[in-house]
């Protein structure tokens, strides 16, 4: 008997465990859906977590107004196929003001459209937990992010007040108005995401494959150049 189950299966199982914990302990969770590859993996994991039932929470797309039309098309078809409810939130105020990455800079534009959009939506729908597809390998500052990341009633993330995460026991307790961001893909790397998409034959927006990335052969496996 091979006891070392392939690591991707192990990561998959751990992510499913995380998603189920949230649904079992929170009243009103939501999964952020960006139409991207990480979202695609996260939605597949959610499907697996509740099979043969369907995903017991809505997906939410924070629409910045700057997505390609084929992405929106893909999104609507995909959500219909998997039988999931979709919420689309647009920060109309800022879109109207003309928030644009080239005008405000990517960071500021993102903050206005995505972050504020998300906070507004969380308040509007009273979501107490929001799944996000962020990974710890994305950048150094994320290496210390928790899987269950606590946000106060203003949606603020206080790094000094994050809860220790011991074993696989996740503290799901919050007060009224507070919320938790949950990152089921915390321990996945970008390569893991690509492998999983391939193994699971998960459809993603063709735009991902539109441009070749420069890669190097690194002693037997392939690395993308950042």
């Amino acid at each position, binding site marked *: 008997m091979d006891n070392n189950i*392939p690591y991707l299966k192990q990561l998959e*199982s751990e992510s499913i465990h995380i998603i189920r914990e949230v649904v079992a302990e929170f009243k009103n969770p939501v999964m952020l859906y960006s139409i991207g590859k990480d979202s695609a993996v996260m939605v597949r994991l959610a499907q697996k977590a509740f*099979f043969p*039932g*369907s995903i017991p929470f809505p997906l939410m797309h924070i629409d910045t107004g700057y997505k390609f039309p084929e992405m929106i098309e893909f999104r609507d078809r995909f959500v219909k196929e998997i039988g999931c409810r979709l919420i689309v939130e647009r920060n109309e105020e800022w879109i109207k003001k003309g928030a644009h990455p080239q005008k405000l800079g990517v960071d500021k534009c993102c903050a206005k459209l995505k972050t504020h959009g998300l906070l507004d939506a969380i308040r509007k729908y009273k979501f107490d937990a929001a799944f996000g597809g962020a990974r710890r390998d994305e950048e150094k500052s994320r290496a210390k992010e928790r899987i269950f990341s606590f946000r106060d009633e203003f949606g603020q993330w206080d*790094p000094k007040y994050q809860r220790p995460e*011991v074993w696989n*026991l996740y503290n799901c307790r919050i007060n009224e108005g507070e919320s938790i961001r949950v990152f089921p893909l915390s321990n996945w790397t970008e390569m893991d995401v690509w492998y999983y998409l391939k193994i699971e034959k998960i459809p993603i927006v063709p735009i991902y494959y539109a441009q070749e990335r420069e890669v190097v052969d690194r002693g037997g496996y*392939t690395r993308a150049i950042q």
Partner: protein
Amino acid sequence: MNVRKSGGQASLLRFTTVGSVDDGKSTLIGRILMETNNIFDDQLDAVVKIAKRKGKEEIDLSLLTDGLAAEREQGITIDVAYRYFQTSKRKFIIADTPGHVQYTRNMVTGASTANLAIILIDARKGILEQSRRHGFIASLLQVSHMIVAVNKIDLVDYSQEIFQSIVSEYDEYSRKLDIRDITYIPVSALKGDNVVTKSANTPWYEGPTVLHVLENVHIGSDLNLHDFRFPVQYVIRPDHNFRGYAGKIVTGRIYPGEEIVVLPSGLTSKVKTITTMDGDLAEAGAPQSVVLTLEDEIDISRGDMIVRRQNLPLVEKKIDVILCWMGEEPLKIGKNYFIKHTSRVVNGFVNNLVYMFDINTLHRTDATEHNPFCELLKTLHRTDVDTLMLNEIGRAEIEITQPIIFDQYNKNRETGSFIVIDPDTNFTVGAGMIRGAVRSIEETIHAERKVADTIIKAINITPEKSFVSLEEREKRNNHKSAVVWLTGLSGAGKSTIAKKLERALFSMGCCTAALDGDNLRHGLCKDLGFSHKDRNENIRRVGEVAKVFCEQGSIVICTFISPLRIQRELVRELIPDGKFFEVFIHCSLKTCVKRDPKGLYQKAIDGEIPDFTGIGSPYEEPLNPELIIDSEHRSIDDNLKQIIEKLQSEGILKG
């Protein structure tokens, strides 16, 4: 993108690195990442540029992992950082734990999921207290494998002697730890010796490199494959035809058709299917997340645990635990906390803090008995305390409002661990490891009796009834049967009174029997010693013998110190109502010590007899005895008269 065929198939090793600021931890990780080609070229270029600018020959590898300066600017606290890399053999998750601030909290977090711990020791400094502390925590958290990296070996001229002396010293210490597998490696993270490639500078070292251990350490057997444990996370009911129980198999394996039992309800059924979106499975094992369906429709909800019928965990409300405190607010004894254990959240409180480990002054006493998990605890320096502060570790007893279903942590990390949540702040304030159940003497006796009752029921023993009834015997004896239980301190006068009482009753024509500690311990109870358990068993047997005599019509005079109320209560339960007379022979300890007829008090005071009642262990005076006899101030004849009058007034003897 070119995705390799074997992608995702390799095994996963989680390890934690511990060491202080200057031990070279970041450099070691940077070295591993660089030499296994897990660093992007632009990242490497940046580090090379910094070195050139500073006019240094060697690049600072720690810059590849250390976000410290940046973190300080961002106000991010010193915390466990997770890093990822991969070789063709394995995928690795590193929990990088800083050694200086919030030390215990971080290391406990990092070690809790690790298969292996790398402990760094600076070859120049040798073994410091903290090196021992690191080993202690790794052991406490039951990390199975450990690499002791003796770093900066280049700065001691690759000295074999220095390496060897560190190895022997740490090896001596580690015998107390419960770590099965320790590999010592002389390394220079800075120069790369024995990190990824074998060094020519240490020809005397024949062992593996750090990476070799990481890639090849056998972790398959770390998984508990025997004890099937399935905490139910969520019930899936998409329609009336399907009812499945979602969860992660935390340990063990399961097959369709196997008999299972649901705890705590005890309901039984068989596994019908192991359902997943990838199809039903013919078998499943840890750590898979699956959905189980059962043959029978039974009531199961989140927090229940499905296990195999022949392999049960423990179900208890009082647990004996090792508790690591992680809250800014100190632990409050008696305060209500939430305890999250497997998929269950229950209310509980610490009702007793047994001691605290002084991890700053770990004593290095030699262990004699080899029982690792317990032995380690025994040999450590302990301090009596009434609270635990942030980063302190202690042993405590926790009471929970509902029973939890667990295994001991050293047998099962998944079902033996829990977190403590403060209901006022919702913060995770503690991490606990269960050592076992806490049982008082009373509960132990009751539990044992319950087991005995079950066995008797199981093998269908029905007591034989005598053809001669008790009523007939009592009529002929001209008195009723009874048990007169004389209790009191050694030297209170129990035996003297018993002898006189028996003689008096016999003279009156009564049918009597006398039982005392000395006569039974030479025969019926000669297999018993003086442990709590044996003393309780001794009293239980006496009670049973007294009951037999009582049923045959005798007045049974029992003379036993029987110091605990529960012991006497249990005998009382055996004897029919109205026939049990608890007679408390009252005499002050001072007088008893003065009398000391057998010289036992002196021996107890000299420490020769431990746990002697009144000296080393308590005597619980009866709360509602049938009779209190004052043997200190009243004459023996008075005492006797008092007992006989009592037996008359209660109708045992005719007036």
